[in-house]
């Protein structure tokens, strides 16, 4: 095994990739993998940073702050409507009123000061996967009371494995069937729960 060592001080954090060290082993590795073999912690962290989904822009940050502001203001109005009372004799609205005030202040702060934070993630092409997943989950919730859990669960498994996970058709169908059968066995036969089921 060849050790490529570089003095830690000379390598800037997140510095560009050095030429790949010739791998001592015989296994041909993925092109990116070779370069990454001898990273210092700083480089490794920088590399993880790069692999993160791209950060969303100021618009997304503003949008999320506006949602916070909206919820805060809504709660504020509703809690005032419930009646505030005094600290000594509070009415139901006082405590929610205090929280929603804090929320509005934080929302305003986030809208103005936190605008340039880079911690929100952009929605990318990859975001269609959670959306698809969500649709299948919602469909399952809607269909379960009507036709039981087995068929929606089977469809959900197939969609998640084949289309979201990129499994082969063969393993998708096989594993999906086993999974649904196992759930049927556990929840219906063994635990005898009242989960709506077709069979």
């Amino acid at each position, binding site marked *: *095994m060849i*050790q490529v060592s570089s*003095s*830690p001080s000379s390598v800037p954090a997140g510095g560009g990739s050095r030429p790949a060290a010739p791998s001592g082993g015989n296994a041909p590795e993925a092109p990116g993998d070779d370069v990454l*073999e001898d990273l210092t*912690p*700083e480089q*490794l*962290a920088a590399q*993880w*940073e790069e692999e*993160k989904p791209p950060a*969303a822009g100021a618009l997304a*940050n503003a949008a*999320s702050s506006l949602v*916070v502001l909206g*919820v*805060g203001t809504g*709660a504020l109005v509703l*809690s005032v409507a*419930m009646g505030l009372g005094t*600290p*000594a*004799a*509070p009415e*139901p609205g006082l*405590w*929610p009123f205090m*929280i*929603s005030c804090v929320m509005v202040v*934080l*929302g305003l702060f*986030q809208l103005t000061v*936190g605008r340039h*934070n880079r*911690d*929100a*993630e952009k929605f*990318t092409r*990859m975001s269609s996967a*959670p959306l698809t*997943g*969500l649709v299948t*989950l919602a469909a399952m*919730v809607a269909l*379960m009371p009507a036709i039981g859990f087995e068929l929606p*669960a089977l469809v*959900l*498994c197939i969609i*998640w*494995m084949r289309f*979201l*996970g990129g*499994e082969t058709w063969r*393993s998708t169908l096989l594993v*999906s069937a086993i*999974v649904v059968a196992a*759930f049927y066995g556990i929840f219906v036969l063994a635990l005898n*729960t009242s*989960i709506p089921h077709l069979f």
Partner: protein
Amino acid sequence: MDFLNPVINGFAVVLEPSNLLYCLIGVVIGMLIGVLPGLGPAATIAILLPLTYNVEPVTAIIMLAGIFYGAQYGGTITSVLLRLPGEASSVVTVFDGYQMSKQGKAGTALGLASIGSFIGGTASIVGLTFLAPVVASFALDFGPAEYSALALLGILLVATISNGAKTKALIAAAVGLLLATVGRDIFTGESRFTFGNLELADGIDFVPIAMGIFGLGEILYNLEERHRAAKAPSKVTNVWPSRTDLAQASGAIARGSVLGFFLGILPGGGATIASMASYAMEKKRAKQPERFGKGAPEGVAGPETANNAAATSSFIPLLTLGIPANATMALMFGALLIQGVTPGPQLVEQDPGLFWGVVNSMYIGNILLLIMSLPLVGIFVKILRVRAAILAPVTALITLLGAYTINNSMFDVTLVVVFGIVGYLMKKFGFEPGPLVLAFVLGSLLESSLRRSLLVFGGDPTGFFTRPISATLLIVFVLVAVLPGIRTLLAKWTTAPSEQPITTKIKEKV
């Protein structure tokens, strides 16, 4: 030795077959999800909450605790072998662990990590055994004023110590507090924020929120992540570290135990921060710091010890004060509430069987984990071959069907999906879900103690400062809230930008 009697009785509780079985189940699940990148311990505990309804409280908590500290062991394996941290608390282990494994010393690294974890965990349980009753007896005099201050401080610390943007974490906490007000007002009986919905009249249950935000939100978020294919090595040989390795790492293990224990107690602390702090400390202390990042055994032993010690000691604030110190502990709190047990200072006195049963189960759990991670490590390495694509739908189905079994109602399932969306969007927009769940759990306690103490003080908020403990806690609260702002101002004055610790960039996996 009157003090030790309940401790010994606690062992009788643990050794009941059903408790032993659940302890084993817990640590195996913990180890598994630790090995599998993706779901973290908090998400797993959230998803499995419905499972705890039909068992004794002590059994339930023994299992959930096992998941939590078991995950600390399991996370190491992928860090060392694949450079993929299974858990956030094992991220720093990657730096030296993977290098060691490249030098053919994977077994040594894993062995050191497990032995360190075992020592750290065990030392922490011993600390817990002696410290917890002291804290609890101190807290017995706490009144509503102290509890309000403590809950406020707990929420603030968890929100500000978390990795993401602090304002966003505080917003999440505010949302959690607001969600906790939904339903009937405990003092006047009036409905709040129910919008005429009968299902909401009794408030939102903790379990659907936790399952949605931690469980489903995490599952949806993971669907988006690009998973690097894990190439599991076929086998790991010789996990027993040599005597010289052990000698080299022993200092790191000792320091990691102490550091982890204390960081775990602090609200907002916990396994992840402890491991990072330990790595930084070992590197600073080392005579040749340049060895770090190139396979220094201390760089594996220290953090792995610290994260286990912290995972264990973070039970102290929960079991003695009734204040969860981090998101996972908030889940334990919720699980106990479901069982009709309110964690707090009276727990040690009133329910010693539960208290010492849970504490002592950790000894057993740690022994089981040591066995699983030394001789049986090969089995867990094989589990790495299970693909995320297969795991994701299975966990999603467990979540949905599990949510149904809580009350046999589709309403809970719907809530889980709704909060799953909320959790996913929160992660996308950089809001930590932890503070929300924690604040939700503490919300009703905070409101009722705040209102009670205001009644005592005749509506005068300055009354909080007339009692020494609540005054101290509130002053700390103000300091924590104001200090970061002052520090940023100071940093602007002094030009030299301090070096950002690299590890803080890594997104916490709950």
